[in-house]
């Protein structure tokens, strides 16, 4: 499975309050997504296009366990996240909703804003348009790939629910 899109580059320690402020936690996804990253990149939510990729530094997603954080990112069309490291709860939440999140050493210095990037989710190979050298992400562990390929936990639950009717 592979992904191709434009890169949006963020820094270190992007927290879940920045990704989705507390006051929008109970808002419908459509509305909440409009405010994603509002305090650090006010026009970002509007500018994102389907298939785009987030590139970030260390400790991406630190803070709360709010699943709406990866949800709004996915809802806006982001196809995958490449970060140097993740807060574990965020990483697990991204996987749980079927949003690929890969760890890549030094990635925020290797990929520039609006670079066109190709990501091979199986091998973890990342190709930046115009750059010959392939960047290597830590490939997703099979345990995590399972959830991504099933479409997240929703996909798994759906399968169980359908099975009950057979």
């Amino acid at each position, binding site marked *: 499975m592979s992904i191709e899109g434009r890169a949006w580059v963020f820094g270190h*320690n992007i927290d879940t309050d920045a990704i989705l402020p507390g006051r929008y936690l109970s808002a419908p996804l459509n509305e909440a997504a409009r405010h994603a990253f509002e305090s*650090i990149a006010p026009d970002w939510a509007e500018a994102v296009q389907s298939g785009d990729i987030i590139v970030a530094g260390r*400790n991406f997603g630190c803070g*709360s*366990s709010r699943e709406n954080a990866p949800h709004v990112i996915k809802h806006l069309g982001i196809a995958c996240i490449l970060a140097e490291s993740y807060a*574990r709860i965020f990483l697990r939440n991204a996987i*749980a909703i079927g949003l690929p999140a890969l760890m890549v050493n030094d990635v925020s210095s290797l990929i520039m804003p609006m670079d066109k990037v190709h990501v091979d989710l199986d091998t973890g190979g990342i190709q930046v348009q115009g750059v010959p050298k392939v960047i290597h992400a830590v490939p997703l562990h099979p345990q995590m790939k399972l959830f991504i390929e099933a479409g997240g936990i929703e996909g798994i*639950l759906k399968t*169980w*629910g359908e099975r009950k009717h057979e």
Partner: protein
Amino acid sequence: MGQTIAEKIFSHKIGRQVRVGDFITAPIDRVMCHEGFFPAASKLAANNIDRIWDPQRVVVVLDHYVPSPTEKMAAVHTQIRQMVERYGIEHFYGEREGICHQVMIERGHVRPGELILGTDSHTCTYGALGAAAAGIGVSEMAYVLATGELWFQVPPSVRIDLTGRLADLVCAKDVSLVIAGRLGAEFAQYRSLEFAGEAVAAMSLSSRLVLSNMSVEFGAKFGIFPVDHHVVDYLRSIGVENSYPITPDDDAVYENNHRFDISEIEPMVAMPHSVDRVACVRDATGEKIHQAFLGSCTNGRIEDLRVAAGLLRGRKVSPSVRMLVYPASALVYRQAMNEGLLRILSEAGAIICPPSCGPCFGSHGGLLGPGETCIASNNRNFKGRMGSPDASIYLASPATVAASAWKGAICDPREVL
């Protein structure tokens, strides 16, 4: 080979010795859901899953939107009540009991050696009672509700060795801020933090709860204390017998070992907007504040209210400050009432609020306007956390919060005359 507490707990759960890095699937002892129960259980309902694996192992507490700030959340609470009944969940604590983590501890739903998950990142708080406890999102919670198990990767353990004893008016919160300042907000990324040392042996349960609670702010998966007589005695006092006295093996292997002499620690603050932007309070004094928040799962317990009341007895909160006091639970509230603490705080000019999360996560109950500064006893000071992204939050101990409320500016509690 010797094992750390996390390794022992995982090994015990799956019936074989685990090693760091192993991917395992483990049965869960208990789950805690706050209002997150609504989206989690809705996913079951949407997929015709009409049974929870073991309703006895599920605790549901309403705390984040209490009393309900909107019609919409009132409707959510109604739906939660219906779902609790439909799924046969007995351990349901509605709006009157307090913050989920405090309720879990007070009502005996946390036992040493257990693997506990919750729909809140501060589920790690239960590590103070020797449990491996962590926060998860609502989809993972739906999965656990359906199956009673979840996958894990066994984390490395990092040891925090504490020696010495806290000086007067220096609190466990100050210790956690010193740890953050020295080691950074990511030092324990996906690690099980284990607290040890002579200072731990002398530490009250309340102080341990602070340190376990703050562990997630350093990236930790778990923040665990060894089980000793403090823990066993507390559990016995609330009717929980036969506690598993879990401690690490003498030859347990830790990835890292950090030592702190807590005798040297002074009152600290975490400056906006990061928990590791730490300074001594005496270097931040004079910064004007508009709101002082005493409460949260970190520091809303009786010990915290006592410290604050001790400083504010016979004194007044500065007229330019709103001091909000949110006791962590109804039990804390009533005990504070009985000890006269609420009277002292109210007479000082503090506003006594319902046991709940309040403004901690930016929803309601005391938000900050643009340009305002708050000193808070909670656990996060990210930009926009408590309202306007144009506001500033300083994290501090209950003593520092109370002193600053009196002064009208950030103030070292030792300066209160």
